[in-house]
């Protein structure tokens, strides 16, 4: 029963609300079917499957709130779940940050967020894609380690103030690391989709394999400030922190207003309206974007709309909770899902051609905050780092540790390439001057 239709879901939610005795009640149903396959050393190591639907009920008495969940849907269980939420609410302290539940909302539509092809994935499909990757590496006498994960699901919301929401989503993500048998070269490729018709594990494995063989014999270069070309996987990541992800995560209005953000203004307030980045930097979110269709409502029911966060280098909007927006009388904008950084038409190869001296970075990894005041982060290059000279890749180089702020990085912009989808975002490769590498790593 994992993917309920809108009617099926709303029927359950209406029943849940009918059991409520609270001042306010909101119920959220979500379901998922999916699976994953993990491989290493050119063989499958683990595989799993998910099939689950669960209900969350939030009940409120005045400013007291309680939440309970369940994953059985008979009347008795639903009634117990509502009662439990109400019991917890009665025990809870009053919230000084209470805001009433939202009433009816108008949401955009993003039908491309769901693809039947992805919902139809079978264990055989996962095994075939994984086998194709492993076979390619067997043939080339390389080692692959990969992870394929897919899901199809839905989210439905309803409350006693008239709010009603429903959307289906599908997704598949794949990543593969290919290493030479001697461990002297390593390459990486990753991609994610709503619709699997564009997915081919073998093509991605070929990219990673080329990086692996190309990175054998890496030479050491002195750490220091370099012009770099950061491929999209060096800017955002599916499972780890990333430089652009960290930048977007820092657009919280409250932190900025409270004085503990790079967006805080000396003397109080925030830096909305200030030009903080190169004028070619524009970042926005749009849940209806054809290439990264996303949820059109936020977890608290607010509509997700097109929002410009940075326009021509100027901070245009910050996101906030409903409480903070009302308290400060500021725009009530939820945190976005995926986002889009505008770019040009050049591919990574084009950017390389236009570079006299520089470093091509496939991937940055183990990125952690060093100083929230300046948004300084540290991390390392990984899985394919190359020296560029006169528009060509000259030779692989040993990995570097960097200490850099995305704020400084986006002021040192040399060129922007064509955006590609990664981790649910659209991200261009970037050419950056004076990127700060602080030490060398022996890691391959």
């Amino acid at each position: 029963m994992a993917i309920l239709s809108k009617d099926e879901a709303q029927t359950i939610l209406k029943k849940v609300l009918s059991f409520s005795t609270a001042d306010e009640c909101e119920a959220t149903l979500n379901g998922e079917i999916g699976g994953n396959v993990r491989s290493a050393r050119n063989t499958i190591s683990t595989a799993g499957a998910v099939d689950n639907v669960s209900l969350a009920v939030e009940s409120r008495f005045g400013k007291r709130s309680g939440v309970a969940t369940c994953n059985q849907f008979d009347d008795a269980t639903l009634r117990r779940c509502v009662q439990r939420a109400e019991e917890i609410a009665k025990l809870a302290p009053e919230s000084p940050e209470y805001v009433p539940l939202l009433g009816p909302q108008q949401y955009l539509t993003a039908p491309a967020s769901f693809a039947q092809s992805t919902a139809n994935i079978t264990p055989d499909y996962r095994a075939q894609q994984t086998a194709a990757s492993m076979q390619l590496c067997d043939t080339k006498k390389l080692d692959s380690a990969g992870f394929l994960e897919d899901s199809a699901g839905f989210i439905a919301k309803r409350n006693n103030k008239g709010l009603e929401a429903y959307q289906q989503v599908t997704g598949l993500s794949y990543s593969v690391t290919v290493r030479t048998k001697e461990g002297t070269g390593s390459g990486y490729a990753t991609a994610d989709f709503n619709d699997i018709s564009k997915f081919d594990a073998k093509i991605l494995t070929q990219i990673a394999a080329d990086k692996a063989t190309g990175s054998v014999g890496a030479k050491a270069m002195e750490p220091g400030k370099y012009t770099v070309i950061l491929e999209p996987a060096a800017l955002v990541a599916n499972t780890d922190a990333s430089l652009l992800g960290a930048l977007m995560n820092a657009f919280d209005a409250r932190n900025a207003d409270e004085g503990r953000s790079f967006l805080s203004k000396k003397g109080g307030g925030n830096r909305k309206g200030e030009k903080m980045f190169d004028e070619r930097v524009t970042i926005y979110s749009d849940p209806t974007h054809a290439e990264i269709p996303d949820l059109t409502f936020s977890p608290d029911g607010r509509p997700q709309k097109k929002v410009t966060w940075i326009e021509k280098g100027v901070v245009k909007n910050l996101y906030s909770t409903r409480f903070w927006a009302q308290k400060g009388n500021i725009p009530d904008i939820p945190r976005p899902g995926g986002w889009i950084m505008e770019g040009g038409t050049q591919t990574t190869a084009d950017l390389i051609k236009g570079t006299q001296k520089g470093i091509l970075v496939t991937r940055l990894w183990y990125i952690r905050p060093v100083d929230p005041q300046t948004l300084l982060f540290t991390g390392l290059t990984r899985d394919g780092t190359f020296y560029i000279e006169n528009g060509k890749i000259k030779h692989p180089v040993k990995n570097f540790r960097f200490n850099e702020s995305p704020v400084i990085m986006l002021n040192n912009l040399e060129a922007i390439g064509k955006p590609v989808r990664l981790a649910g975002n659209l991200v261009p490769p970037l050419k950056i001057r004076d990127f700060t590498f602080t030490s060398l790593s022996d890691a391959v």
Partner: protein
Amino acid sequence: MKRREFVGLTSLAAGALFLPSIPGFGGSLVDPERLLEQVDPAVKKRMADAALNAAKSAGATYADVRIGRYLNQSVFTREKQVQNIASGESYGAGVRVIANGTWGFAATNSVTEAGLAKAAQLAVQIAKANSKVQKEQVQLAPQKGYGEVSWKTPIQQNAFEVPIAQKVELLLAANAKALDNGASFVNSSLFQINEQKYFASTDGSYIDQDIHRIWPTFTVSVVDRATGKFRSRDALSSPMGLGYEYLTPKAVDQVAGPAGTGLIGYRNSYDILADATLAAKQAKEKITAKSVVPGKYDLVLDPNHLGLTIHESIGHATELDRVLGYEANYAGTSFATLDKWKTKNFQYGSKLVNIVADKTQPGSLGAVGYDDEGVKTGQWDLIKNGVLVDYQKIRDQAGIVGQDHSDGCCYAQSWQDVQFQRMANVSLQPGTAKMSVDDMIKNVDKGVYIAGRGSYSIDQQRYNFQFGGTVFYAIEKGKIAGMIEDVAYQANTQEFWNSCAAICDRSDYRMFGSFFDGKGQPSQVSAVSHGSATTRFNGVNVINTARKIG
């Protein structure tokens, strides 16, 4: 926004922190009293047998089942208010099988004999499907069955029995101490976990365990509006394998920090009020502290800081699955390769460095009676007198390195995740000669003293790392010479551990803990402790992390 992130953000009251998005803190949210209920082992045995029999009938040559009730409770506050209180429960079973020499796994929240039998059959079906593209047959180290046995974390007070109001009162009192002493903001929280897990296998083991963990923590921030500068100081508590008794401070558990710092180190109990008071004062001091001059320094590292360095540069590097390449696509591999280990003289660190892996240490996060594949736990040497002597391994890895036994460090974060090799407590043994932290500092001419965890990053083979900390003090001519800021040190793992020049004695030994250590795809968390005494490292590269943005 990914659907799962959305789900995590939905399941809580408005204005709350997003608890279910924290690994290990998902599950259904239930009323607190329900967390005290236990499931009868006899019932679990009957269901486990149904799964094992179904697996064997379907063609499994080995099967194990974990019936787990994973409970958690957390309290979040900021300044004078409660942000969120949540009690969660996740109950279900995972069945793991070997069929055609291949692993298969399936999980179900239908904890009935029929539900478990169905999961077992699905696990066998998955194993057989995957065996078609499998190249290496799974070989398990032999393991005798223990029959019906049990184990319980030796706690004095079950944190789940303590009224929530009492926990809220304590956190708000800590917040008040911080605010009274100059904090602009303070966030405090208390995490509690109880794993009630039942393991059974075709080897003949029926193991019932009741495991408890707790972590009180806070972050105090001071904002100087005039300069626009802000600084934070985190709690110096450790997550522990203890009950609520951890929050009743005892003088015997306190170790004075270096003279001139006011710091206190905590063993098996923690004084959150005293630490919050000190934290506010130190956060204020950080605003005006001098910026470090980069260069080579002798580092004197407090156990509450050094634990994370041990974790990243030794704990993860000696995990055999990383060494063999099973984590290559995510967390990476390891520089501590088999060829280095086989030489029996790979000098990982100086002769002072003795590193022990341990799954039994009382009060530690990793302490259990048996691991999640039914192996009785113990302790073993990883590094002896500076030389790499062993790895951390589980049943299907032992044979690969020519050994006939698992180390008992297999773990799954819940019933619905497959168990795999996870880090044991990995600890640096204290020095044998009497030495306090002040004794150590008096011999340091130019150094930096660091306490608490900060920024941390290490490469995918565990060579190059960079660590920050919570508080930093300059050491000049044998004495603490004031707080400094903007400190991070960068080193190569082997060079760093070979620069280990002195270790304080056992009286200074304490445990650091990592409550949410991530690994695997899909990612799972585990909790692990790292003990050490204050330790000196000579000539380490310190960088200045201050920057200016426009």
